[in-house]
């Protein structure tokens, strides 16, 4: 790891690969999928607003992509290297899924379909208190299979919680296949619009588009914001891209070297 590394798309991917390899853990493709979202969120949107009672809340509902969260927190100076190195160590505080109790992790997640309700409760607390802080939640596309996601979505629209931003990582792959083959989600933007959200489609790897979308929370709208981030599973490591195997598999030493090298070539 490079001391003092900046929060960039190549560095966040490097940290994800490094820690995944060191711990011999999987969920790599899911973490790489949201790497650019996390870079923009932590570098450009919530930086400097992550502490105190009126902090912005970030909830990683797709908890299996925790490595992307840890890497973003580390590269933005919110997480020490010593703690990052606890990832999946016995007794360590950083698990495969995020666990509360450390700065930067609001909620323990890992059971899909719960993060949006937790986040909506936070946004509701802000509304009841008349406070202006924002709540960002990152969901997987497959979480839209969960009925509870839509319970929360309809409630947030009914309550007009415009400082609640849900980013849906629409990489169109889930644990056992393409979303189209399991539960087709079709035009996700229309679905979120249908339940009352202000929804936008963005290229989930384009930093400029992502920043503009995440800042919709600051524009005085009356609806909660859904950012449909069109992403590529495993993005940034060509041999992992769109390959279902990398939902669960860990890397061999050779695969790790190949992944890091391909990352270097891409940057």
């Amino acid at each position: 790891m490079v001391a003092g590394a900046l929060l960039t798309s190549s560095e966040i991917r490097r940290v994800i690969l490094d820690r995944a390899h060191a711990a011999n853990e999987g969920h790599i493709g899911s973490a790489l999928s949201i790497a650019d979202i996390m870079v923009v969120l932590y570098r450009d949107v919530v930086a400097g607003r992550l502490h105190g009672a009126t902090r912005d809340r970030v909830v990683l509902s797709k908890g299996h992509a925790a490595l992307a969260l840890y890497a973003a927190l580390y590269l933005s100076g919110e997480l020490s290297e010593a703690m990052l190195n606890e990832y999946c160590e016995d007794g360590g505080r950083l698990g495969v899924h995020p666990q509360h109790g450390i700065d930067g992790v609001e909620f323990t997640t890992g059971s899909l379909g719960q993060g949006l309700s937790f986040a909506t409760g936070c946004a509701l607390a802000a509304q009841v208190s008349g406070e202006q802080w924002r709540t960002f939640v990152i969901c997987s596309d497959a979480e839209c299979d969960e009925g509870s996601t839509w319970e929360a979505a309809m409630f947030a629209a009914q309550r007009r919680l415009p400082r609640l931003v849900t980013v849906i990582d629409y990489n169109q792959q889930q644990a056992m296949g393409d979303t189209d083959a399991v539960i087709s989600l079709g035009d996700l933007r229309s679905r979120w619009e249908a339940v009352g959200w202000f929804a936008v489609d963005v290229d989930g790897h384009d930093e400029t588009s992502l920043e503009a979308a995440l800042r919709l929370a600051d524009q005085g709208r009356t609806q909660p914001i859904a950012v449909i981030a069109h992403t590529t599973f495993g993005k940034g490591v060509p041999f992992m891209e769109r390959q279902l195997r990398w939902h669960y598999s860990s890397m061999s030493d050779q695969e790790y070297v190949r992944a890091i090298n391909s990352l270097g070539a891409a940057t």
Partner: protein
Amino acid sequence: MRAEFVGALHQLMDQDDRVVLLTADLGFHVLEPLFDAHPRRAINVGVAEQNMAGLAAGLAHSGRIPFIYSIATFATLRGYEFIRNGAVVHGLPVRVVGIGGGFEYGAAGISHYALEDLGLMRIQPGMTVLAPADGAQAVTALLASWDLPGPVYYRIGKDDRRSLPELKGRFRLGHLEILRHGTDAAVLATGAIATEAATACSQLEAMGISCTFAMAACLAPAPRDEIASLVDSVPLVLTVETHYVVGGLGSLVAEVIAEAGVGCRLIRAGVDAVPDRYSGGQPYMERRFRLDATSLVNRVLEAGGAPRQSGREVSSRPR
């Protein structure tokens, strides 16, 4: 019980703006005064109990004290994983209010019978589990628990007429309330069925069977030492609850008896089968599962809890 509990909750909302009420579209003709008085903090989330429990975690995480309100089955079962992964895992002050435990919804049927709520809540570490006997005790229990740092489950009876006057509303967190001391048998009850248990104790006393009667409104934190002491003093113990026989008060007492090495016999009066494919009002269902006072007396007599005399058994067949 419900009216007094909701009245006390209304006062808490008046006094402390951290208190937020969420209901999953239930409480018609009950909660309206709270909505009228506190439109910002009384919220109908719609028929969405999972989301309600998740919202409560988010609210509590941000400094609020949310009460989530529904019929006891829906409040506990539908959103159970949200309660676990939210309030319990994070140790948040979420209050789950389950209305009408046991058979209180009568002919509404099995979908409305909470028969495992106490067990489900009791197995979650750090969850305070309260099942008061009547309205007066429900109010005392609420005032003793509403601002605890961790989650609380309240099983609140729907019937506002049932009461246990001799209890005088007493409640202490982590304790039994012992209303009668005896030497032949001990009866422990939880929830609104305690009125039947108390009547049964009086009838047993009239038959010359000396009974201890204890109200176990606080199942967690469990009054283990008090239960151990109580059951050690008698040869026969009867637990009474409108709950499946596994997981609730009977299970708690069995655990204590086993762990303390007490040599008494235990009868767990509860619901021992899925009550479906037939209908009936609350009294009928309680009789059918031998939870009415007469049946409870017979259970003690059948178990030989006291000097037996022929012809003592009272008919308790469902009418």
